[in-house]
């Protein structure tokens, strides 16, 4: 294993080196960086600009040795002394790259995490309900999303959804009857097709979902909930309990009383701590504290699981930990919602919260909650845009992978041993179906970097994409190379990790 990893790392290093070399030669031939300087009307100034540019960009050196000058600067990153060269406006690229990278990485990370989790869930559910109406709908939608150009989704989301939603909020956030009925019907239909079993049971659950959504939407519409949302202790308790029940059903089954009690105790602790937590949230919040709280919550969940004891302490502890995460999420979401009204009334936001331009509102001031809301309102549309496309890939691949696994002999063996369907699916099938997804996700991250260039253009972000496409149009070599080097390193790293993960997860893979 160790030799395999070392060999892959060395190969990855040389591939990155080779790719940057090819790219550098290409960029060097992509246009004359002095073209803009040659247009300066004043001859003295022109001559001076040309000489300085030639000196700072090493244009008097042949591209091949110039590559090594550039490489020396970039390799300085390993000793904490990065030098990505200068732009033709004679600004260092390094700081530009740093700020661009932070907003682009946020976008890519968010959309990858969402796409992977939602996509795999959808794929596995549609595999379990193969040839059902749900399966056909999901398949068709996946094909449709494959066919949608990234920028088309972006423009539609931006010009139709965001602007209308903002106007809708300003108008008091009252839903029309048609929307309420159609939306709840759709949800009820989804509920109906997700549940296994007899038609009567499915109909009951489907209409239950319909009624719940109908009531919730009606309430939200009448109270103008969307303009000043919050959950309140009762809804927090109900939602957390529902999440806890769902997790218990998936991990242990409701028949496992210890796990069920663990989960419910964790929820109770979370709900009891809701009020004191508001004081904790009030001042000096930052992401470190959020993370700390999450760790504490998980520890509490595990502790409760062990405290209940029994034969399968580990399972209870796991259930407790997952429940702790969902409960914390509900409490966090409630606090985020309470910041919503203050955010929309902020003078820099001016009542139109969903943003279609830039990664952050300029000149906005506020506490942690306002700033986080601001980041999220800017992230939401680009994230959905990027996510929808990889969602299609992930759902297709995980569906195929799950179907393949479900036809294996060991699944039949597990069933014939008398294991419950839940155990067969969650323990035997699901875990094995995830193995091939490692490769798919890695490839997808590389594709997302390309998609991010387009998305950022649609939403007017000055990030990695702008570095690249502006650099190309202005024949400015160093920003282009900075984008390329980051993109190549991410792609190669993702592939490397996928290979290693694949080899580590699947013992059938020969390491060569």
């Amino acid at each position: 294993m160790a030799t395999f990893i070392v060999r892959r790392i060395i190969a990855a290093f040389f591939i990155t080196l080779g790719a940057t070399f090819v790219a550098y030669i290409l960029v060097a031939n992509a246009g004359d960086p002095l073209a803009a300087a040659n247009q300066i009307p004043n001859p003295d100034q022109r001559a001076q600009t040309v000489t300085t540019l030639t000196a700072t960009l090493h244009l008097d050196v042949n591209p091949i040795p110039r590559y090594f000058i550039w490489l020396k600067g970039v390799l300085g990153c390993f000793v904490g002394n990065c030098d990505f060269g200068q732009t033709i406006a004679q600004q260092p690229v390094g700081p530009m790259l740093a700020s661009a990278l932070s907003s682009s990485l946020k976008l890519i990370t968010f959309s990858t995490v969402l796409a992977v989790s939602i996509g795999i869930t959808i794929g596995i559910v549609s595999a379990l309900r193969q040839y059902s109406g749900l399966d056909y709908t999901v398949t068709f939608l996946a094909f449709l999303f494959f066919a949608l150009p990234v920028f088309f989704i972006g423009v539609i989301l931006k010009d139709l959804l965001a602007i209308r939603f903002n106007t809708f909020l300003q108008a008091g956030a009252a839903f029309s009857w048609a929307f309420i009925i159609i939306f709840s019907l759709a949800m009820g239909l989804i509920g109906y097709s997700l549940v296994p079993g007899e038609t009567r049971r499915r109909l009951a659950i489907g209409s239950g979902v319909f009624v719940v959504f109908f009531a919730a939407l009606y309430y939200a519409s009448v109270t103008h909930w969307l303009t000043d949302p919050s959950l309140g202790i009762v809804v927090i308790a109900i939602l957390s309990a529902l999440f806890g029940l769902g997790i218990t059903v998936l991990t242990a089954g409701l028949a496992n009383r210890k796990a069920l009690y663990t989960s419910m105790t964790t929820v109770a602790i979370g709900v009891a701590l809701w009020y004191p937590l508001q004081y904790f949230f009030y001042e000096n919040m930052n992401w470190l504290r959020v993370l700390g709280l999450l760790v504490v919550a998980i520890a509490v969940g595990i502790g409760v699981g062990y405290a209940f004891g029994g034969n399968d302490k580990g399972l209870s502890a796991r259930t407790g930990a997952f429940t702790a995460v969902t409960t914390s999420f509900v409490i966090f979401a409630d606090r985020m919602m309470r910041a919503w009204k203050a955010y929309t009334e902020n003078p820099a936001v001016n009542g139109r919260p969903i943003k279609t331009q830039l990664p952050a509102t300029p000149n906005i001031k506020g506490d942690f909650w306002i700033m986080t809301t601001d980041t999220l309102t800017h992230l939401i549309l680009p994230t959905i845009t990027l996510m929808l496309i990889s969602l299609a890939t992930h759902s297709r691949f995980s569906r195929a992978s799950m179907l393949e696994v479900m036809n294996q002999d060991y699944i039949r063996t597990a069933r014939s041993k008398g294991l419950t369907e839940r155990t067969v699916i969650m323990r035997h099938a699901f875990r094995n179906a995830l193995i091939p997804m490692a490769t798919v996700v890695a490839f997808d991250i590389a594709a997302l970097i390309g998609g991010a260039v387009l998305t950022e253009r649609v939403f007017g972000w000055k990030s990695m994409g702008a570095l690249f496409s502006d650099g190309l149009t202005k024949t400015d070599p160093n920003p282009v190379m900075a984008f390329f080097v980051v993109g190549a390193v991410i792609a190669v790293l993702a592939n490397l990790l996928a290979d290693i993960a694949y080899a580590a997860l699947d013992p059938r893979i020969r390491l060569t």
Partner: protein
Amino acid sequence: MTIHLPSDPHETDVLPVEPRDEMSLEQREVAGLSQGQIVRRRFFRHKGAMISLVLLVFILLLSVSSIGWGPIPGWWKYDYSDIVAPPGGSEATFSFLWIGGSFFHWGDFPFGAPSVGYDNFAQVMRGIQQTLVIVLIMGILSTTIGVVTGALAGYYRGWIDSAIMRFTDLMITLPILLVTAVLGYVLGAHGVIPLALALGFLSWQAMTRLVRAEFLTLREREFVDAARVAGASDRRIIFKHILPNTVGVIAVQATLTISGGILAEAALGFLGFGIQPPDVSLGSLISQYQGAMLTGEPYLFLWPSVFIILIVLALNFIGDGLRDAFDPRQKRIPKAKDLRSSREQSREADLRAEGSASIGEY
């Protein structure tokens, strides 16, 4: 993995419901057909793929016949570079199934016209033609490169394999955008053909990997040994013996590559690196009119998008149909009605056989 053949005796014993009928039904379906015929039948039966195929042909005919192509004259009155609309542009006059007025109405500017004065319909048709040129050139190029490199790597293994695969890894990291921008600058070429060539030269990597994987398994099979013993050359083994067995994988991957290439061209056009004005492509049209949603001319933006989506969607469905058609493990689930009639038929046949046997006795 084991492949259960329909004639596998264990299968027949184990299956719970009247397995004999199912088998006979399935066997009767493919009896006496060659592999090619079976594949063709399965493909024609795939509804999504067939609808897509018809749609694709319709779009092709529409785009070529409407504004003409090269020497071929078209039936539409304007060309994509004519400035014909009144200043201020025109609304879309096309209506169908009473959406927009009457049952079917064509009008002067079916897809509207921008204030510059171009006819959007003619421009969209031109964009489709460009897309189809790209489909053709890049499809052929990337498939050829991918198949040849993958076959060589998989068949010879050793250092050839390492060299090709490392080169493939390297090529995966190069963005198409960069290469086309360089090509545009160095060659001064912004037309559709250099673009299609660039796309073709940069999108064969997935094909190489897949074909190599297929060759790695197929080269160990008995029929390859048999061919080698019979004195076949490497070239003959690669192209005559192994390659036909990988056609399924290649066909599926080719359709996916092409649909990816169309989206890549649109993306290039959107960023301004693709086909340059006065010529147009679907991507450059979308880019040009992306603000049209807000200015009350959504038809300018929507029609080119609709055609890209339709073409790519159709290609993906055709790929799916091909995958199903070539998959040897694919088993159609017989409908209950078919099963019943098949059972009745065989019972009748049994009766007749009994009857004739009894006649023979007496």
